[in-house]
């Protein structure tokens, strides 16, 4: 399944770039994520809960970042395994400066297998869009929170 879209963050490209690679921020923003820790340079381990259709399950996996090109963009690879199947996402994030901040453009492909493919594939598209939307809206809240606390300092 292909995913693509864009989201406007009220932060300059450098700041947006940092947020998108900050494990604590990501753990807070990723829906269902209860653990994200750096295991090496550009390597993280992650655990998140996913609900698709009638099934839900924990996915344990790793996130790796490649092709770092600060602040223009990077490649993100997510791999997860769980009782209900497996997923692999491979995407390119491009950060484009805009008058109000930074437009984050994403384009990638998500592949799933196991029970989530057999049961949830029909709803995967909407689920993925929903997860991405929630992620960015939470990230936007982080930006606002950070900038307001910054303004207060």
């Amino acid at each position, binding site marked *: 399944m292909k995913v693509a879209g864009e989201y406007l963050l009220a932060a300059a490209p450098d700041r947006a770039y940092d947020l998108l690679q900050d494990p604590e921020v990501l753990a807070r923003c990723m829906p269902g994520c209860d653990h994200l820790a750096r295991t090496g340079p550009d390597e993280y381990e992650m655990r998140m809960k996913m609900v698709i*259709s*009638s099934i839900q399950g924990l996915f344990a996996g790793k996130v790796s970042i490649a092709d770092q090109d600060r602040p223009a963009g990077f490649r993100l690879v997510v791999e997860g395994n769980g*009782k209900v*199947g*497996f997923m692999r996402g491979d995407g390119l994030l491009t950060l484009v400066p805009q008058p109000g901040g930074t437009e984050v453009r994403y384009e990638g492909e998500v*592949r*799933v*297998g*196991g*029970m989530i*493919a*057999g*049961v949830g*594939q*029909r709803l995967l598209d909407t689920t993925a869009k929903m997860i991405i939307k929630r992620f960015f809206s939470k990230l936007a809240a982080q930006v606002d929170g950070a900038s307001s606390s910054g303004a207060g300092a």
Partner: protein
Amino acid sequence: MSMATTVTKAETLVGRRLRRKEDPRLITGTATYVDDIQMPGMHYAAILRSPHAAARIRSLNVQPALDHPGVAAVFTGADVAGVGPVPCGASLPGLRVPAHSVLARDRVYFVGHPVAVVVATDRYVAADALDLIEVEYQPLPAVANPEKALEPGAPAVHPEWPDNLAFTYHQEGGEPDRAFAEADVVVRQRIISQRLIPTAMETRGVVADYRGAEKSLTIYSSTQIPHLMRSLVAQMLGLAENRLRVITPEVGGGFGSKLNVYAEEALMGFVAMKIGKPVKWIESRRENFQCTIHGRGHVDYYEIAARKDGAVLGLRLKLIQDLGAYHQLLTPAIPTLSVLMMPGLYKFRNVSADILGVFTNCVPTDAYRGAGRPEATHGVERMMDLLAAELRMDPAELRLLNFIGADEFPYATATGLSYDSGNYAEPLKKALDLVDYHRLREQQQQAKASGRLVGIGISTYGEICAFGPSPATPAGGWESATVKIEPSGAVTVMTGASPHGQGEETTFAQIAADELGVPIEDVIVVHGDTAIVQYGIGTFGSRGTAVGGPAVYYALQDLKAKILKFGELLLESSDVTFSGGVCTCNRTGKTVTLAQIAAASYRAMKLPPNTEPGLVATHFWEPPNFAFPFGAHIVVSEVDPETGQVEIKRYVAVDDCGKIINPLLVDGQVHGGVVQGLGQALFEQAVYDQDGQLVTGELMDYAVPKATMVPWIESDHTTTPSPVNPLGVKGVGEAGTIGCSPAVVNSVVDALGHLGVRHLDMPLTPEKLWKLIQAGGQA
């Protein structure tokens, strides 16, 4: 004129619309299915299955599952190295047969491939413990589409065969090249017969019970072939055949999907022998979709050659069969049936067919209701409509012009078959009369003129069934029966066919009751237990009545001869007739009843010359030929231009299955068959994504027809007895499915023909038709 005795012709039970003897237990919930079997100490198995279509197993750690409370054992591929391969019974020249272990060794080949089995004291514990097994897979590229699998550079399903070809097969008859060179018209079309999931109401299930002291294993399995299963599973487990008993309890639908020996039967036998406790495995619906065979899976390239006047000259077919990752019992043989039946009911003297049997990273395909014949009928019946459109001829007229004549039987086809008997125009004419065809065409024109998308579709099918003469079948094509008359006169029929919904407990009782002149209530029919019933072949390919029936008939003839001998002895006369359940001396009029004869035969105070005590006869009947039923189905459909929904306005089926033993059961078979044909035509498709993930993984995503989606089916018959067997019967289990799909598709193509639509591939979903209508007929 007066006579000393009045002779009344007894009304026969054969031919009567009798309710099934099977039904009371089925409708009162007292039938016993595999999952109803309970035994002391029973354990439960759950199977870990691959989530990948292709992957190497890097590591496998079962210890956490073993440590789980309630888990008795876990077995993996390494443990079952001594168990023989899952059998393929079909043979073709040069066939590549992949090693097919009951559990994956170091590699998995399709989603659902069994990797390990967990055995626990509780079904839920077993299922939970599956999640504790740690498997590290290294995913490999997979290919799920047979045409893509043939492309150079495609991922190799089995690395030893990079071209993914399991076999090629060529058959031709007559002079196809010349026929095509001399033709006025040649019509070509690519036709897909999509992968289907058989979806029996009862999933598969196995109970295995090993008695170590007796070294004997009993396997209860929801199968169509208990005896063949015994032979094959005994071989897999290295058991002597008489140490294995296979019992087939009630079977909740098979449709070919249980005409197989799967990994799980031998695996449960292995587990029971290892743990020394009975073990039960019941397939979940999701497993059933992933791991039980699928049906169809063709991409067919057809060419038809004809003269301007509509006379057909030749037919060519390139058939790409999606085999899946392995051969199950009959996998590679199924498309050869399509080739045998490709000429349909027509005088094609020149035919040529090539099969490419292709491995894909999917569950294997195999026999599914019709097995190769629905695909063939769909092909030739679509081609006849395409030819009719090309020549601007009426599709009914084109068919009538090309039918094999009623005076040409037995008819030798260009594919090497001998059609036993037929009158192909008769059911078509009857169906045309039933729908009032000419008036219907006028009404269609009026409807179309007012913007309604109404279509009329005709399909005339022929099928090969009553499998079959032994030289032409993989495992022997005969069937067996034993008839016992107990000392009290009660009659027990034991059939080697293993009916599972076809109703032979009723039809065979009708035959026996008629032959012996006893009430049908006195007859019981026993089947499905290898320790009780003599060796048999099974029920598939519309053979139960057509091959099993004659075996019963001939066993009864043997028995009647013996009854007569005892009658002569007891009546002290050589002029005795057996009729209506009594032996009568034709000189004195004295009688002796069957019960008296039975009692005397077992008491054996006196015996007729050269006669053993008792009244038991066994007959193994070898059919001299297949039987070839036929028929015509007409569908009137209307497509809603706003939604793309197809509504079947009328469904008329005129089937000729030879002589009918029980019209009620024949109607039931036609109805069920048509519904499964509608499933293929309108709703069903097993979809694998590009990575080999089965997307239609459960009944939420795989649309089998429900009662509200089924039209009223008007069923009628013509009767052309088969000369192949003494009952004149042919077989009707698959007819409805075979006749249905082309009639539906032809009707919808007819409804959309004015938009330039000449062909549509199944299923005809609202989405597909709506898009087509929106695009003005351009796909």
